Every structure is written in structure tokens, then in C-alpha cells.
């Protein structure tokens, strides 16, 4: 048959043309007329548990809520770490250190959203409401959304405050039970946010008080728009924000749990910035022209804690010998790829309480073996190293670190078994004290050194689950408490240096590393700064 009328090439071209034009309709990538609406997309690592950081300490919740939706009375200067004014324009401390008076700013607008229109601006009632919510167990909002305030309880802020008074509309007075110099720093943390009392009243009247934590209202630079689980959190700019902020109209948290997908989206421009680049991704990011990687020393410490309530780890000599058996420098190279500095104490060098001349344990397997035998730990002794199943800034790969340590311990005649569970089970079992030793760490919530010393090693922190060594020393507790009685840094530093000496001598834990913090973003984005004290801030972020 003759199909000469059917030029094959023509038909092929026609069909190809149809295909290509169909697939390429609208794909004129980055042409001059093609413009996205004004907004920043941040690829975050998970769903927030709540939109109120008072209720949850996880970094994911804090990142989404604390600095986007809310303000605090006080803030930290991200560069110097000093406490600066926030919603309180100034504050006074009484001579006895017991009474703090805060002068509040005027005409600070709360968010006007689809579900709430404020009739008044921020005032003393909002401060009293926000603080009483976690402080007063009889407060109508105390038990709303579970009634747990983990950070505030762990630092004992609720028990520290004896009274909060409204002096006048723009003046609040807080009285403490005892003087404590970390009080102001705690008010500047991500957790001491100010809620709207007027909104709370409205919700209580409507019988839906829970909405205060799911449909939040604050004074922050962005107001909540919507949240879809596993998809996104959408914020709009707060047009009446009181501080200077970028002209970004939208802020979107694109929830992307896989770190490789986050990086891929950053490369294609679907994200403007990404959360937690892994150490193996850092080089890839550095090599891409269109991406920027910022790094800063983090206020954190990764350590190996011994369960001091279990023999033979109740003996300081045994703990020191174990610390001597490990080559910290080898861990630095194998685990952190140069993205951390070795730790000599639990305090990172960026803190003013850091003691540069601290003598840390030195690697000496022969001396370690000798010391172990002298203290009754015989060849072939078996112990467990618990390794976190998750990646954390202070320890990106606890499992691998445990494997390396296993080899070092074998050299001193110790047979170490690695134990790991799913993360929530891991923490629950750790709280029961079922471990011999554990590889874990701590990231600071504020710039105050008390935030390291108190939660990590005081007796009361055993119950709240942050003292992984379960170490209790009256002498240490006294030093930490005494430090807070003074306000001058030199005075406090003296007590902290004593505390560091004590830790080195007793070795309830072996500090390993202070890791850097990283922030990856596209090069057309400006204003992203690493916040050493916790949550990310988007107030000044804009895109060209």
C-alpha cells in the first residue's frame, strides 16, 4: 500500500510538537516576566507540636512559633549575647535583687486575623496573663492544652516568682522568692512569650480555650494564617509590627522531613532556606554557586555521661580512667568532619563563663588501664554505651561515635555494648537510669552559663530528666546556687570556675565537642542570622 501521502517525519514532528508544547506550556523558567509573589519559604524538618513554645521545648516548635508570632519582654542581642529590651522598653531591679519593674512599650498591636480582631494594644494585662498561665496552677488557662510547661519547670521559673503585679497599664512588677541573676536571661528565652489576654478572654467566653495554642495571636512580625499537617505552615506579615522588619509579605514553613529532599528543594529554588543541613551535605552546599552556607560556633556541648548511681561508675577514678581511654581528636575527625571544636568543659568558648586554661582529660590508654585495674575493674569488664538514634547538632552520629569508642575501650580491657532505641523510648528509658553510660548533649536556650551548669548536673535536674549522669553533689549545687546570688560577671565566673574544677575532678561526664551551627540559604536571600540561643528568626529576612 502506498502511504506516500503520510510523510512519517511530518507526523512524528507533529506529535512531538504536541507533546513538547503540552509539557512545556507554562514552563518558561525564570523568564523576566515570571515572578513569584513576595515571600520566603523555609524548608523545616517537622510538624510543630503546638504554636505556643511555653508548651514544648522541641526546636521544631520553637522555630515555627517563638520569634515569628510572638515577642518577649526582653531579647538577646544575637551578636553580643547581651540582654536587650523587647516589649519592655526598660527595667529596674531593686537593691535586694528581689523586685523587677518593667516599663512596657505603648501602642504595640496584636495580630488582627480571620479569627480575632483586637480592640486594644499590648499592655500589662497581657504580661500578667502570659506569666500567670504557667505560674499559677489555679489559673483558668493553666491546664489548657495539657498544662505542661517543660522549659519553665526545668529552670524552676514558676517557683522563683512569688508575685506579678500590674502597677499601671504600662508597668509591671515581678517579685522573686530569692535573688537570681539568670532571671532576666530566662525572660529573654524563646519560651517567655507574651500572649494576648483579650484573645484568651474571648476564647474562654466562647468555650474554646484550646484555640489559643492552635490559632495563635501575638505581637510578632508574622501572623498565623494556616497549618496543614505534614505540608506547610503559612504566615502573613503583621502590617502593624512595632520594630523594623523586612518587606516580606509571606513566610512559609514547608514541612520536609527528609534532609536530602530539603537540600534538593534548596537547589531548585523551591526553598529559600533549609533547616539542619547534615554534615555530609555541607561540602555540596559550599560548592554550589547559588547557595550560601553560614557557620557559627554553637552554644552546645556533646558529651559522654556516666551513670554515677551504678557501680563501678560511682567511683570518680573509674570515670576518669574511662575518659582517658578515649582519643577525643580521633572522634573530632571521624564524626564532626572539622565542624566542631573539642570540648574541655561543658561550657563552650563563646560563653563568658568559659575557662580557657581548663585541663581536660588527655588520651592515655596505659594510665587508663592501670587506673581501672587499681579500682577493681578487671580485664573483660562489660558495660553499655547508649547512643542516640537521631542526629543532633552536638552529635551528628552517636552510633558511629559509640563504635569508635568501643574499640578504644577494648584496648583497656573493657567490653562495651552499644544500645539504642527509638528516640522517645530512648529518652524514657534514660530517665529511668537504665544506662551505664550515654552519648548525648545539650544546646543552650539562653546565653547564661547557668543554663548549662544547672540542667546538666544539679541534683534537682535528675528528676526533670536532664542530668544524664544522675550525679548529685551538694558541693556543686551550692556553687551553682551561690553564683546566682551575684550579678557581676566576674563574681559569678569565680564560682563557675570552681564548678568546672569539680566536674573535671569528679568526671560525671566527659565533654567531647562544641559543634558549629549551620544555616544554608540561597544567595538572593538576605538577613538570615544564626541565633545561638535557639529558634530561627525571619524578621529581617528578605529576597531580591
Amino acid at each position: 500500500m502506498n502511504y506516500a501521502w503520510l510523510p512519517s517525519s511530518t507526523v512524528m514532528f507533529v506529535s512531538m510538537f504536541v507533546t513538547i508544547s503540552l509539557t512545556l506550556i507554562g514552563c518558561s523558567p525564570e523568564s523576566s516576566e515570571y515572578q513569584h509573589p513576595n515571600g520566603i519559604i523555609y524548608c523545616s524538618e517537622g510538624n510543630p507540636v503546638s504554636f505556643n513554645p511555653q508548651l514544648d521545648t522541641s526546636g521544631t516548635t520553637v522555630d515555627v512559633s517563638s520569634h515569628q508570632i510572638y515577642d518577649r519582654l526582653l531579647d538577646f542581642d544575637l551578636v553580643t549575647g547581651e540582654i536587650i529590651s523587647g516589649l519592655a522598653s526598660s527595667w529596674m531591679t531593686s537593691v535586694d535583687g528581689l523586685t523587677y519593674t518593667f516599663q512596657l512599650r505603648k501602642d504595640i498591636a496584636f495580630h488582627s486575623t480571620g479569627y480575632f480582631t483586637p480592640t486594644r494594644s499590648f499592655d500589662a494585662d497581657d504580661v500578667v496573663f502570659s506569666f500567670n498561665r504557667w505560674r499559677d496552677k489555679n489559673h483558668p488557662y493553666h491546664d489548657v492544652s495539657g498544662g505542661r510547661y517543660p522549659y519553665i519547670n526545668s529552670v524552676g521559673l514558676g517557683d522563683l516568682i512569688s508575685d506579678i503585679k500590674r502597677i499601671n497599664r504600662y508597668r509591671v512588677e515581678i517579685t522573686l522568692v530569692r535573688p537570681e541573676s539568670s532571671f532576666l536571661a530566662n525572660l529573654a528565652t524563646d519560651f517567655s512569650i507574651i500572649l494576648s489576654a483579650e484573645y484568651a478572654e474571648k476564647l474562654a467566653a466562647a468555650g474554646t480555650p484550646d484555640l489559643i495554642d492552635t490559632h495563635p495571636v501575638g505581637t510578632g512580625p508574622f501572623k498565623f494564617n494556616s497549618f496543614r499537617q505534614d505540608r506547610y505552615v503559612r504566615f502573613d506579615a503583621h502590617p502593624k509590627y512595632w520594630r523594623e522588619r523586612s518587606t516580606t509579605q509571606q513566610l512559609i514553613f514547608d514541612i520536609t522531613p527528609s534532609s536530602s529532599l530539603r537540600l534538593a528543594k534548596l537547589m531548585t529554588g523551591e526553598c529559600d532556606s533549609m533547616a539542619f543541613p547534615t554534615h555530609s551535605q555541607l561540602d555540596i552546599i559550599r560548592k554550589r554557586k547559588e547557595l550560601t552556607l553560614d557557620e557559627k560556633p554553637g552554644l552546645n556541648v556533646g558529651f559522654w555521661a556516666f551513670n554515677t548511681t551504678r557501680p563501678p561508675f560511682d567511683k570518680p577514678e573509674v570515670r576518669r580512667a574511662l575518659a582517658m581511654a578515649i582519643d577525643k581528636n580521633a572522634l573530632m575527625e571521624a564524626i564532626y568532619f572539622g565542624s566542631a571544636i573539642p570540648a574541655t568543659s561543658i561550657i563552650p568558648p563563646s560563653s563568658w563563663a568559659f575557662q580557657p586554661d581548663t585541663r581536660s582529660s588527655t588520651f592515655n590508654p596505659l594510665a587508663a588501664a592501670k587506673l581501672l585495674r587499681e579500682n577493681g575493674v578487671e580485664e573483660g569488664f562489660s558495660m553499655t554505651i547508649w547512643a542516640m538514634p537521631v542526629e543532633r547538632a552536638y552529635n551528628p552520629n552517636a552510633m558511629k561515635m559509640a563504635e569508635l569508642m568501643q574499640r578504644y575501650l577494648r584496648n583497656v580491657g573493657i567490653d562495651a555494648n552499644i544500645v539504642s532505641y527509638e528516640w522517645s523510648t530512648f529518652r524514657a528509658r534514660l530517665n529511668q537510669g537504665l544506662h551505664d553510660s550515654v552519648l548525648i548533649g545539650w544546646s543552650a536556650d539562653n546565653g547564661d552559663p547557668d543554663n548549662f551548669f544547672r540542667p546538666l548536673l544539679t541534683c534537682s535536674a535528675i528528676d526533670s530528666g536532664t542530668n544524664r549522669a544522675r550525679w548529685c553533689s551538694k558541693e556543686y549545687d551550692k556553687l551553682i546556687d551561690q553564683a546566682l546570688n551575684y550579678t557581676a560577671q566576674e563574681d559569678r565566673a569565680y564560682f563557675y570556675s570552681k564548678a568546672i574544677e569539680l566536674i573535671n575532678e569528679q568526671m560525671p561526664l566527659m565533654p567531647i565537642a562544641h559543634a558549629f551551627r549551620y544555616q544554608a540559604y540561597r544567595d538572593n536571600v538576605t538577613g538570615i542570622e544564626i541565633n545561638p540561643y535557639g529558634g530561627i528568626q525571619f524578621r529581617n529576612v528578605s529576597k531580591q
Partner: protein
Amino acid sequence: MLKIILRHVSLLILTLFILSFFSFSLAYLFPGDPLVNLTGIRDSSEQGYAILAQQYAMQDSFLSQYWQYVNHLFSGNWGLSFSSGLPLAEEISRSLAASVELSAYALIVSFVVGLPLGFLAGLRHHKLTDFALLTTSVIGYSIPVFWAALIAILIFSIQLGWFPLSGRISLLYDVPYQTGFILIDILLSDLPDKEFAFKDALRHLVLPSVSIAIVTCTIVMRITRRSVVEVMSSEYIQAAYARGLSPRQVFLRHGVKNALIPILPLLVMQFTTLLTNAMIVETIFSWPGIGNGLIQAIYQRDFPAIRAGMLAVSALVLTFTITIDMVIQIFDPAGRRPENATS
């Protein structure tokens, strides 16, 4: 015709009934309390639990429990998701719409590409063009859909930066949910930058729909090719030539229609294959469809979501298949369908 309709409707009802019964019994087969598995409501107070137990007739016989369950299904009460706490009926209808949308666009791409190529191969039977197209189709058919998707991402998203690799539209566009079909929703919306949003949504569609369409396109091409070959060598075509018609006239007047009639229903049936492939591709492209939703539900052991998701997908596939089969039988009672898709 009435007989055909009755037969199909009764088949549909019976199968849906079996499906719903299976889905109901899953609540007992999954670990945990059946009532919690059915409703997704954990942590309820004793009183709340008692009310729920009464609603779902938990104290009564198995059959009346099932009857209550079916009632709840029809009233749109599909229970709550364990992980998000949101009503499943809404979640699933949203994600199902996204999956159907993706499959529909992939089907269009397959037709637009596969049909002309199939005709071409059929008309050039056993010539170079035919062999070339057949070879290409074998390659296309052999590539696993997830592999094609990953390669597409690697080349067109990460290396060339032409297309985005996740989602249905840039999150900067806040398109209000109306029909669940993103392109239609954009057109219905009052977004100020509708045109850009539409383009953006199209760009998001390209890679996932093309990845899915590769396999279906080869199937369409092969079915068409075979049908064309059969039709063009049939006696009435020879008779048409004998009447002195030109090849072009023969093809356009007799060939196209006769080749298309038997294959169109078969091609529509490809929709279910597409839906299955779409569910795989969704997870790769983070497309918020039912496949992606089910995978997440499985990861999180979200039993109510798994159960309701499975029921929704299988009900959709069943309804679609049986309806199409019914329509085919009504319009083409002789059942002139090639049985084998790949000859």
C-alpha cells in the same frame, strides 16, 4: 440494556459491600482497641468513650456494629486520623482529588503522544519507523515508573533547573480549596496573579505526569498500532481501495474510525493502571495525593487512615472499572475488543 445496567449495578453494590465489610473487620485485625481503630479517637475520657461505643453499637452484635459503621461511612463520618487528628473524610477526598487529577493529566499526555505514534507505527507496519517506535516503546515499557521519576528529577530539576520537584504549586500561591483540581481551583479563585499561578501549577505537573505517562503511552501506542494493522488489512479496506479511493481517503474515511472504536474503551481502562502508578510517583514528587498519604499513614501506623484510604481507593477503582465496562457493553454489545494489549 436494562439488564446490563442492573447486572453491573448489582455487581458494584455487592463488591462495595464486601469491600466495606473487609475494611470494617480491619478494625479488629489491627492491633489495639477496635473502637479506637474505627474512630481514630484516642485519649478520650471514659464518658466520651462510652458515647462513642454507643454510637458505633460496640455492645451489640458484629452485624449491627457493621451496620452502624456503614451508616457512619455514608454520613461522611470516616473517623479521625491518628497522627493529625483531622477528619479522614475531608483529608481523603482532598488527596484523592489530587491523585485523580495527576492520573487524568497523565492519561491526556499518553493519548496525545501515544495515539499518533500508534497510528504511524500501524500504517508503517514492518518498516523502519515501525521497528524504531516498537523498540522505543519496549524501552519505555520496561523502565520502572519510580526510576523514570528519579531520573527526571535528577536531570530536569536538579541539573537543568527547569521544573520543580515537589508539590502541586509553589507554596507562595495560596489557592483556596474548591474542587480539589488545582488548575480548576486557580481559574475559579480570585488570586491577583492567576496567570502566574496557573503557569506555576503546570510546571509542577510536568515531571510527575510525564513520568507516569511513559508506561501508559507505550501501551496506548501498541494497542493503537495493532488495531490499525488489523483494520487496514481487513476486507472492507481492500474493497475501498478497489473502489478507487486514494490511500488518504481510505484511511480518513474508514481507517481512523474503525481503528479507534475497539481501542478507546481499552485505553480508558488504563486509568486504573495510571492511578496505581500515580500513587508511586506521588511519594517521589511529594504530590499531596492518596498514595503519598497512604505511605505516610503506613509509616506512622495510622490505622484509621490506612483503612479509610484503602477503602476509598478501591471503591474508586471498582466504581470506575465497572462503570466503564457497563458503558462499553451498552454501546458495543458485540465486544469487539482486542484482548491483548501488547502484540
